[in-house]
């Protein structure tokens, strides 16, 4: 990803890389696209564009390296360039992404979230998914990349083009927002918390 080293693939090898290394991620890619756009047609287009783009630039992909991170990066960039502009989602605000985040007062509050494991485990419907979807797109994205897809901070930094410190503080904040959402749901559902 960092350097433009072009691989010399035969046509046959290109197909093999495509099928063996790119296609296995299609379900994750589609889920990501859908959770970015909330529209099946847009998600289809976004995934298709991503795969065609990946194939077009396959010579800059080094066999055996992290295909998934590469694909996620292409998809995320396509989303920003082609979809985010026209979507009704307003440009987002203040992320409080100060690197000194852990020194802030908020840390204390987060140590005792008013949400319990038992309460979470009673949420057997769409609550978790809905709470995730309710987050702003940047927060939603880091949760998807980390918790759902298992990317490491360093990979996320490359996918999102942001420093690792920002990945961590954004993720931290995203998880707290998610927990806030879930405790709202819990209250609506009539659970007694803490």
């Amino acid at each position, binding site marked *: 990803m960092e350097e433009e080293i072009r691989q010399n693939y035969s*046509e046959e090898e*290109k*197909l093999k890389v*495509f099928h063996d290394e790119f*296609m296995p991620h*299609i*379900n994750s*890619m*589609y*889920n990501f696209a*859908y*959770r970015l756009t909330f529209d*099946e047609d847009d998600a*289809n287009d976004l*995934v*298709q564009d991503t*795969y*065609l783009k990946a*194939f077009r630039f396959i010579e800059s992909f080094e066999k055996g390296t992290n295909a998934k991170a590469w694909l996620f990066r292409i998809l995320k960039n396509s989303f920003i360039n082609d979809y985010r502009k026209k979507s009704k989602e307003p440009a987002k605000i203040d992320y409080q992404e100060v690197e000194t985040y*852990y*020194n802030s007062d908020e*840390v*204390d509050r*987060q*140590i*005792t*979230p008013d*949400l*319990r*494991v038992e309460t*979470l*485990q009673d*949420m057997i419907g*769409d609550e*978790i*998914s809905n709470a*995730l979807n309710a987050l702003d797109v940047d927060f939603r994205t880091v*949760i*998807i990349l*980390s*918790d*759902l897809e*298992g990317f*490491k*901070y360093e990979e996320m930094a490359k996918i999102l083009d942001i420093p690792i410190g920002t990945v*961590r503080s954004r*993720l*931290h904040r995203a*998880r707290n927002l*998610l*927990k806030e959402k*879930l405790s709202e749901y819990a209250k609506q559902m009539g659970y007694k918390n803490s």
Partner: protein
Amino acid sequence: MPDSTNPSNPGKKVSCMEMLQHILDGDATAEQQQHFKDHLDECMPCFKTYNLEVALKTLIKTKCNGNGAPQELIERIKSQISQNMPR
């Protein structure tokens, strides 16, 4: 890793939370993991938060995976790729 065995000292809580996140995201070394495991026996806030975070992470994994890509999409991509190949 800073000593984080004293949760009553507010200055130490910072490293608790930071450590917890590293552990949670698989970004900690084996040594840090062991340190954290020991720490959980001594720090109730970490213990509670850790269990909650793990539960949440597990739930996200099981509840937010979607239903997979539509078969038509998979077929369409495959056929477009093979059409692009010189025969």
